[in-house]
Every structure is written in structure tokens, then in C-alpha cells.
């Protein structure tokens, strides 16, 4: 089951489709604090966009602007080409926000029923409950639920109106691995049905596993944007460690090598893609040994992006 979920390839960016949500050169100030600085982004129908960044980067602010819960100080926020506050647009939008307290004396099913009634064409209650994995606990009071179960109720409230545009602000926070995978599966299904999904996360592997496009944001500015593969490639995606007689300068000159240095009697090579470099290393040095390839992963990519000032020039 899990393997099946993992094997669903993220669909290619749907460049031709219309934008469901758009920030156009948006700046947002809270008093003297600039939460967003000239940010432009777009989520298209059928696309999953991950907005990735550390706490305080401006991710939630971006979501609030697109939900019409806040107005930009400059620039424009629009959904379906119009005002996010327009009820007709809100009927096509669902949101899972970070909330400190949800009324605890309503049952799971009652919460879902109430929110479903707000929308013109909601999903059947049973379908919403099943999608969020709540069927067996639908009679429970919200206050009796575990943290992960509470998150799933909030997810149910976000999808119950069968929205065309879905915002998920740190949706998998506090979920265990299995619950997270269930949620990912649901999010992918929604995108396959043509829904536009914007998710914010600081789980970097989540953005990698789910998104068609990733937008890296830090201190209110977009510092990188691209497919997960591009983002990883942009910042030394693989690290090869080996023992070889080849000189550092020779390795550095090889195609695909971003950086190489010695570490004791081994050599550490940074590269976007490991395989071509490995082929070349093996071809040139038949006695190469102790080869170890590690993924830099999005974590490192992210760190490199947020720490590297030169990343700014690329957006």
C-alpha cells in the first residue's frame, strides 16, 4: 500500500492551465515588520505548490492574504481572478489553518456536517470522513481526540466543500508517519482531480514527495523556485565520498562536479546527480574504493539556499 502511494509520480507543472490563486508583487507589513517583500506566486489548477521555509518566513501570511483574511500592503492577491473575500470565491476554496483551539464539545461528524452546510456542493459526509480517516471516530467529541486526529478533522473541514482551491498551512504538523502518508495520498488525489493545492511546510521531504513545484521562502522573500529536482540540483544534491588516486584538480575539472575537497585520505565530491560522476570516476580510476553516496536531500538544499546569499540572483 505504502509502496503504491510512493510510486505515484508527481505530475508535471501544468503551465497551460489557469491560475487558481495568485500573489502579484505583494508586500505585507505588520507595523514595522515586513512579513512579505515583493512576492509573486501562482498556483494553477491540478498543481501542488509547496511553499517551503523556516518559521517566520512569511508562509502563513501568504496563505492569509490568499484567503482574504488579510489585505496586502502593496500588490494584489487574487483567487479565480477575483477578490479572495468574495463569497462566490470562498465557496470554491478550502483551508486548513493553524488554530490553537477548536470547539471541543462538538462531535467529529457534527463539525464536518456544519462546515459542509456552508458550501453549495459539499462532498457526502461519509466521503469526507473516509478521506480524512475519521470514519471510526466520527462520534467522538473533538476534545477527546489525539493531536493527530484533531489535525485530520481540520483537514476534513478544509476538503468537505469539495473546493477547487485548497490551502494547507502546516497540515501534517504533529501527524505520525502513517497519518502523514494518508494525508499525502489524499492531497495527490485532489490534485489529480484538477484541484489546485498550496501547502506550506517546513518538512522538507514533504515538499519533495508531494509538490510539482517548490517555492522556497525566507524572511519574506522568495529565494528559489522550481521542481523538487531542480531545487535539489541547485544546491549540491549528492555527496560522493571515496578513496582515489585522482587529484583534486582533476576531479574538479570533471563534468557535473560542483565541488571537491579532501577529507583526511578520502575525497568528498558535491554533485547534482551522482551517477554520471561515478561512471567517470570508475572509468578513470579502476582502483577507486570505499565509495559512499549520500543524498544531500532537501534539508541540505534548503540550508544551502537559505544561507547562500548568491541564491538571491536566481529568482
Amino acid at each position, binding site marked *: 500500500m505504502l509502496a503504491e502511494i510512493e510510486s505515484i509520480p508527481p505530475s508535471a507543472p501544468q503551465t497551460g492551465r489557469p491560475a487558481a490563486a495568485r500573489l502579484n508583487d505583494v508586500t505585507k507589513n505588520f507595523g514595522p515588520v515586513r512579513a512579505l517583500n515583493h512576492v509573486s506566486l501562482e498556483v494553477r489548477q491540478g498543481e501542488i505548490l509547496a511553499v517551503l521555509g523556516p518559521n517566520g518566513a512569511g508562509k502563513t501570511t501568504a496563505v492569509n492574504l490568499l484567503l*482574504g483574511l488579510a*489585505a496586502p500592503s502593496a500588490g494584489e492577491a487574487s483567487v479565480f481572478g*477575483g477578490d479572495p*473575500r468574495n463569497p*462566490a470565491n470562498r465557496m470554491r476554496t478550502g*483551508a486548513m489553518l493553524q488554530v*490553537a483551539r477548536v470547539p471541543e*464539545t462538538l462531535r467529529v461528524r457534527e463539525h464536518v456536517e456544519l462546515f459542509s*452546510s456552508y458550501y453549495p456542493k459539499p462532498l457526502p459526509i461519509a466521503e469526507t470522513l473516509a478521506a480524512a480517516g475519521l470514519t471510526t471516530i466520527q462520534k467522538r467529541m473533538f476534545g477527546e481526540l489525539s493531536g493527530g486526529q484533531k489535525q485530520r478533522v481540520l483537514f476534513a473541514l478544509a476538503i468537505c466543500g469539495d473546493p477547487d482551491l485548497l490551502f494547507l498551512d502546516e497540515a501534517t504538523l504533529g501527524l505520525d508517519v502513517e497519518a502523514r502518508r494518508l494525508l499525502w495520498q489524499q492531497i495527490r488525489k485532489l490534485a489529480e482531480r484538477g484541484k489546485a493545492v498550496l501547502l506550506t511546510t517546513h518538512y522538507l521531504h514533504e515538499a519533495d514527495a508531494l509538490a510539482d513545484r517548490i517555492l522556497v521562502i525566507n524572511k519574506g522573500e522568495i529565494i528559489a523556485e522550481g521542481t523538487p529536482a531542480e531545487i535539489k540540483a541547485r544546491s549540491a544534491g549528492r555527496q560522493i565520498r571515496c578513496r582515489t588516486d585522482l587529484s583534486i584538480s582533476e576531479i574538479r575539472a570533471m563534468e557535473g562536479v560542483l565541488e571537491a575537497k579532501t577529507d583526511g585520505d578520502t575525497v568528498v565530491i558535491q554533485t547534482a546527480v551522482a551517477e554520471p560522476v561515478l561512471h567517470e570516476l570508475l572509468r578513470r580510476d579502476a582502483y577507486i574504493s570505499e565509495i559512499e553516496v549520500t543524498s544531500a536531500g532537501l534539508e541540505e538544499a534548503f540550508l544551502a539556499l537559505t544561507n547562500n546569499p548568491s541564491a538571491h540572483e536566481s529568482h
Partner: protein
Amino acid sequence: MNSTASAFGPSVRPLRRTLAIYGKESKYEFLKLLRLPVYSGSTILFPVMFYVLFGLMMNRGEGLSSVSVSTYLMATFSTFGVMGASLFAFGAGLAGERALGWLQVKRATPLPPTAYFFAKTVVCMAFSLIIVAALLTLGFLFGNVHMTMLQTVKLAATLVVGSITFCTMGMAIGYFAGPTSAPAIVNMIYLPLSFASGLWIPMQALPHFFQKIAPFLPPFHLGQIALSAVGAESTGSNLMHWEALAAFAVISLGIARIGYQRDEGKMYG
């Protein structure tokens, strides 16, 4: 972008569905509070307890203002109960939902904002009715209460309609108080106001000073209308008291609006 969109008009959904939303929102708001012992327990229990203690047990069968003590206190303790139910539901409820993000979640949905406030008001009215019914039952069964059907209906209607003023006061508190301080602030307003408005001890028995300030206190006015409904002597005309209650409601809504705009300014500025 910042201008309110024209599509905010009523044509967004058919009337039948709008009414269904108002109904469901009210139903679940009621269930939510009914299942909350801190709320339903204390708002119903306190007036009942006071009435049993002062209206029934300590009552030596004397008359007061041309009615029995148990009838007099029926009117004033019901007013006291209605005030508490409304101030807590609206004040503490709104303060918590506003500060802890739930109101944001609701605002992001197509729920009409008026439905949210409508539901809270209807629920305050429902709890007001429960409190009046409880006191009436106790008074009829165990007290020396003699009221005509008309008087009974008049008392209940007066208190249910009068609860609106306390809803607006609660709304004003809810927009300015924090989630943890709101219940304390409500208590600080509710208890002294009840006392000074003659809801615990008849106005005539209070020091002269209180009779001077009472006209500036909303519960005094509702208490007087409630007293006249049960046939007790009251000061001033009912019309004047209703006007005063309406004025307090307008002032409270004005204060709430300032808080609402301050909130929006934080988010929307």
C-alpha cells in the same frame, strides 16, 4: 482589491440554503455550549441556586412591592441569570474564538459573518428561556408564586428580548478581552452590576447611592421591566426602560465595532 466586492450581495446562494446555514450554526452553537459544563452548569445553576436560597428557603412568606417575595425574586434572579448567560456566551466565547484562531477558520469559509453572530444571539436567548423556565417551575412548585398565564409569558418574552442588550455587551467585551481574561472580566462586570441594579436585594432596600446610579446600569432597566411583568411595582415607564436598553445595545455595538476594526486592522491594514 481593498474595496468590498459587489458579490457580497444576497444573490450568492438561494434563500433556503442561507436559512439552513443560520439554523445549523445556531443548533451546533447551542449543543456546543450545552455540553460545556463550565458554561451550562454555572449559568443555569447560579440563578437557580440563588433563587432557591433567597426566594424559597429564606422566604418567610412576607410580601414585597405588592407581590410575594418569591414572585419578586423570580423576576430579578431571572434577569440576573439572563445577563450571566449572555455575557459569558458572547463575551468569553467570542474572546476565545477570536484569539485562538477559530474565528479565522470560520472567516475563511463561505459562512455569512452575520450567521455567526446570529447563532450566538439565538443561543443566548435559548439559555435565557431555560433559566426563566427553571425558576418559574421552582417558584410554581415550591414557592408562593401566583402568576397569570399572561404574566408568565410576558416575563419570559421580556427576558428573552432583553438578553440582546447583554449579547451586545458581551460582544464588546469579546473584542477587547483576551481568551483567559475574558471570564474574569465578565465576572467583574456581571456581579457588581447585578447587585447595584437591585437584582439581589430590592432597590428600595439598597443605600440611596445605588438608586442614583442604577439608571446608568442596563440590568436595572431589564429588572424593572421584569418586575412590572410579574405585577410588582416598578419605577419609571416600561417604554423608558426599553429605550435605555436599546441605547446600551447601540453603545455596546459601537464599542464592539471599534474592536472589530482594530482586529481587522491587524489583519487587514
